[in-house]
């Protein structure tokens, strides 16, 4: 973070710019789709939409390179499927199972070791926090957690900037 970067364009391919573009686009879309909510329920819905949009645009900006981004995208899509045409939950289950089972068996033993090493509660908590964390061993989990934290920071920064910008 150098104090001079405001004078030069940020890398157009950076995660930040990608996320910003995606998020702004989805925000505008949300705005167009629904009128400004008057009632709290609508407000909550809108809020949820915005949050989903933020998560999704972040995951898309990251791409499929990371386990957590893929997991997040899957989750969002499943949610959409679930809510949309009311597909049977089996679809969702299948998707999730495929993902977890692949690594589940391999990682089971390692996960047990991980828990012993680092504390059962903490690792399980971390797994829950990081999307897609259940199916990873501690080593990869820490890796993904680090990247996830980085991306979350970026997300918060950008969202705050947007909020500030539009609150003027």
């Amino acid at each position: 973070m150098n104090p001079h970067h405001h004078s030069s364009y940020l890398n157009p391919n950076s995660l930040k710019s990608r996320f910003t573009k995606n998020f702004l686009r989805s925000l505008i879309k949300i705005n167009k789709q629904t009128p400004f909510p008057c009632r709290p329920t609508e407000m909550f819905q809108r809020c949820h939409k915005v949050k989903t949009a933020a998560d999704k645009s972040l995951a898309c900006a990251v791409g499929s390179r990371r386990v957590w981004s893929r997991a997040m995208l899957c989750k969002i899509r499943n949610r959409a499927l679930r809510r949309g045409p009311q597909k049977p939950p089996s679809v969702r289950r299948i998707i999730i199972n495929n993902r977890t089972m692949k690594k589940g068996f391999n990682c089971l033993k390692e996960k047990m070791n991980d828990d012993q090493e680092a504390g059962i509660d903490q690792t399980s908590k971390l797994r829950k926090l990081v999307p897609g964390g259940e199916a990873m061993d501690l080593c990869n989990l820490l890796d993904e957690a680090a990247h996830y934290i980085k991306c979350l920071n970026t997300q918060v920064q950008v969202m705050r900037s947007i909020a500030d910008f539009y609150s003027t």
Partner: protein
Amino acid sequence: MEMGDKDKFDLEKRSENHINYHLPGSVPSDWRFSGANIANSSLGLVSTDNQMPVCRGDLVGASCSSASMVDSFSPGVWDHPTNTQNLGFCDINVQHNASTINPIGIRKGGPASLRSGIDKTLDIVWNPPSSQLKGGIFLPTTPGALPQSLSQFPADSAFIERAARFSCFNGGNFSDVVNPLGIPEPMDLYSRGGGMMQVPHEVFAGSGLKSIPGGQGQKNVMNMGDSSKDASLSVEHVATEGSPLKNERRSGSFVRSHDEAKQGGSGNESEETEFSGGGRQEEQSMLEGNGGELSAKSPGSKKRKRNGQDADPYQAKGNQQSIEAAKDNPEVQQKGDENPASTPNKTAGKQGKQGSQASDPPKEEYIHVRARRGQATNSHSLAERVRREKISERMKFLQDLVPGCSKVIGKAVMLDEIINYVQSLQRQVEFLSMKLATVNPRLDFNIEGLHTKDILHSRAVPSSNLAFSPEVPMAYPPFNVSQPGLIQGSFPGMESHSEMLRRAINSQLTPLTGGFKEPTQLPNAWDYELNNVVQMGYATSAPQDSQDINGSLPPGHMKAEL
């Protein structure tokens, strides 16, 4: 070389005939290089026995023009395809050596090899060169390459490669090589091999093999026409591919030789240069089973040998593999070194239990782990140790990411902090999305591009949003209350709050400048502490990095920028 010239020309003619004769048919099926027909044929032409007596005489007295020697021998060489392979290789090497260092000496080596038969010839020929060319790393490779090339006779490329190599090695090792042999005969072999080597010779002319009678060589080349070109090309390929170490040299020599060969084969040159330039990969594929591999390994093996330790145990293995034609030990050992090159990698790769001399063999996909003193060398414990190290390394990285964790030591506490931080970040996202949901209506009249630019490049300047300000800190205190340890989470809110306030107060302030030089002007309404924290953050970094202020860490600490 009494008969030298005369015979040479006779031989040449014969060789030419042979070459033409052999061209169509003698290409071995397993010869990889379709374009290397010439090479095959030329190899085939290298005869072992028949020509030897004839050629020897030529060789002995041969002048430095290795090419001439080659010519003289080539006819004989051409006669015996199978043998010629070996001979060819020997010859090439010898010739090169001869040209570079001591023509006579080289020649001696050549014929000798021819005499004793393919295998022996190879051994003889190769041993001296290898011993000689210690400086030249790939020399040893060539000897090693020979045995393999023998088996794959169409290994014209290997042959050529060696020729190329020798051309590169103008260092006079060959004289020594030859001397031990003390056999003038090898020269015959070389000359024979030279028959086919002519093509490469032309290529290597620059390196010093100019002795190649340009005319003769050209003649043969011209006769062969395209085939020679192919051969040269293949040679190029081989040469360039053979030894990664000498690649640049070879290409250099090739280039030179190309120039030299321009005498007759301009086309050749262009092709050759092209190939030398980019033919590495092709060569690689071509040389696959050839000495190319060996040559590639032999430098490594050579190194290993020098280092001493691993070479010996592996030589046996290498010997088994490499001994196809060569029976002599030195060569085999050279090859053995090459072959074990792969094996030591593997054995070393197995958890590096032996505390492998990983320095020598090129590290492959295995992770070399050295067992520390007093630690178990069980493969399981080694793997465990590697894993633990990986985890601790990642924890360190996370420590840098998460503010306020630098003082913490210990996995459990660290993990707690990390979990808290992730939770706070996620809550911030929720809060901000809620905020945005309420703010959204104002987005409509803004252009997306403008938004992006503004947002990315500047903290939005809320000219005065005191209305919002109270909201922000109010949202965050709950965080504080719920998790006393999560004070850091409150900072962003506070910080943005104060930032907004500042902006309201100091209209001149642009967040981008990051030069909040008016910390003193902060309203007293704010906590002085908070102000200090914020000042720190702003003074040292752009306002965007408000989060860097968390935990009062230097902004650079946060590697949030992606």
